[in-house]
């Protein structure tokens, strides 16, 4: 066994011995670093988002104000969280449309529990657990019964939206515990509210923490590795011993739970719970858009949580900037659609470059 197999450079191993990883020559470092960045999955959307932000910042003085930053956050943080869950499933080659339904349902469940004299925190936690259970149901129908996840979650989307309308009698209610400075409520309630959405940076912190955790999960743990494996080659992953069902069902549960978190954060932030399925459906589509713009393919096998965060930021900046610019709201979805198509073209092109290069 003296010669080599297929490496193209027969037996002559580099001087450092074959056990050494070959390093890129130092002189090429700056350019290769830029190239590496540009063809990273997130690279192009980061550049586009920075350019868009610069454009609005230079043309609209109001865009860079603190108050606008605060106004921007709700346009961005909730979608970042939802898109993170969606990315996990899209890497699996699945999709979860029911996040819209969960987003709508979770606050009402929380409301019902809280009005049934369950303390606020347990009520929230029970609601999160119920959302995880919805994910389990999605996963069961998809992985055990064998229904395509698009169909499964379309079913649960409508079911949950219908269920929400039934239990709410289509009436708007006030989110329990959302009064920051209510006279009757003590400091504990306001602490609760500021943690669960009402604090200025609450949603942003939730989003950053969740994205950071999921990024680590995806890139540094077995869970992430198996998620990619299942999406890239489901049969091969199963043959290698990956527990495919467990991996996909677990991701469905995470995705649903994140949708429940966003639903409750948003209801506490706005201090009202509104049974509006059409709004929830738009939020669902925005979340998928954020994931796609961020560089996650629907085909499975690859995706990025950081990209989803930046994709959500891009959507937020676009919406906010256009609003300040006084652009007719009718144009918003026109631009959004164009942005998705453009992002996909860039993704496909960059993907080709990436496969041709030495960058992993």
């Amino acid at each position: 066994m003296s010669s080599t197999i297929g490496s193209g450079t027969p037996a002559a191993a580099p001087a450092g011995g074959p056990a050494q990883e070959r390093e890129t020559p130092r002189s090429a470092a700056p350019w290769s670093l830029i190239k590496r960045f540009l063809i990273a999955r997130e690279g192009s959307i980061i550049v586009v988002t920075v350019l868009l932000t610069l454009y609005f910042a230079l043309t609209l003085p109001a865009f860079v104000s603190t108050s606008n930053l605060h106004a921007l956050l709700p346009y961005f943080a909730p979608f970042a969280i939802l898109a993170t869950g969606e990315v996990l499933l899209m890497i699996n080659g699945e999709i979860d449309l029911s996040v819209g339904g969960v987003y709508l349902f979770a606050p009402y469940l929380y409301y019902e529990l809280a009005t049934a004299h369950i303390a606020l925190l347990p009520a929230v936690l029970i609601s999160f657990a119920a959302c995880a259970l919805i994910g389990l149901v999605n996963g069961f129908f998809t992985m055990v019964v064998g229904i395509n996840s698009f169909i499964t979650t379309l079913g649960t989307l409508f079911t949950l939206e219908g269920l929400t309308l039934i239990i709410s009698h289509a009436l708007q209610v006030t989110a329990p515990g959302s009064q920051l400075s209510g006279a009757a409520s003590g400091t504990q309630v306001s602490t609760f509210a500021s943690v669960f959405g009402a604090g200025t940076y609450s949603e942003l912190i939730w989003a950053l923490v969740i994205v950071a955790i999921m990024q680590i999960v995806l890139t540094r743990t077995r869970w992430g590795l198996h998620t990619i494996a299942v999406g890239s080659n489901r049969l091969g992953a199963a043959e290698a011993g990956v527990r495919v069902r467990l991996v996909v069902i677990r991701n469905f549960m995470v995705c649903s739970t994140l949708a429940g978190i966003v639903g409750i954060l948003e209801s506490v932030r706005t201090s009202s719970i509104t049974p509006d399925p059409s709004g929830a459906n738009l939020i669902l589509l925005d979340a998928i858009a954020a994931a796609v713009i961020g560089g996650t393919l629907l085909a499975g096998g690859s995706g990025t949580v950081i990209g989803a965060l930046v994709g959500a930021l891009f959507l937020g900046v676009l919406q906010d900037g256009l609003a300040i610019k006084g652009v007719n709201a009718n144009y918003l979805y026109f631009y959004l659609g164009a942005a998705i198509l453009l992002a996909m073209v860039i993704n496909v092109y960059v993907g080709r470059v990436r496969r041709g290069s030495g960058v992993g």
Partner: protein
Amino acid sequence: MADQLVPGEVIVAPTSAADDVLRVEHIAKSFGPVTALRDVSLHLKQGEVLGLLGDNGAGKSTLIKIICGFQKQDAGNMWLKGKPYQPKSVDNARSLGVDVVYQDLALIDELTVYQNMFLCREARHLPLPFLDSRKMKREARKALNDIGINLPRLDVPVTRLSGGQRQSIAVARGVYSDADILLLDEPLAAMGAKEGAQILELIARLKQEGELSMIMILHNYVHVLESCDRVNMIVDGVIALDKPTADTSVDELTEIVVDEYRRARLAAQADEAARAVAAPSVGD
């Protein structure tokens, strides 16, 4: 099972011995209306290389997938080193010392070389759940060097590698798994002559070391006679031949296949004749 036998068919009973590491008895497996295995029994001795032959669709891969825990048999039993053996999963079989190199390689295109090599056996910074990539890279490099495969980088996705390189990674993954029994489903399928020779050389070396026992599916009879101690041939879902390679020849193995082909043709002709008889009544 005897009532299903075709006249003129031979079923070889396993001649089991005390040093069998693996014994498989009366395995049957169907997929809906398709019967892959009717009644397969075989045994594998310590340090032995058993060649598994048979026509396309004879059920060789199915048998491998049952032994490695990927599929469950409909009937029949298995013993591993004298103990009843019924793997619950691929992972379970692996922990019992049975590993496999699949025909389709089971490589994940999006994952890197070392991630593929350690898929489901990942090194981690326990008790933390984080992957120990450095350790995996180091051990993957060592394993690949050991078997003479020199790849410049292990942190590139395997999708960039050639067919032969991918095949050799799949083989390395199996060989380097601390298994006692290795199942190889056409390990030379995607390889050129030179690369194939290296894998056969590796198998010869492993055989010489004597710790690993192997069942190998091969299509090339010359390779079989060269690398295997013994051959089993599956015909129509049963083992129709069990001989040491020294006692058989390319001619004999070919004859069995040709004979099988003849019988299949006769059956097809009989079928056609029966249909021809039935046809006029339908036509009127």
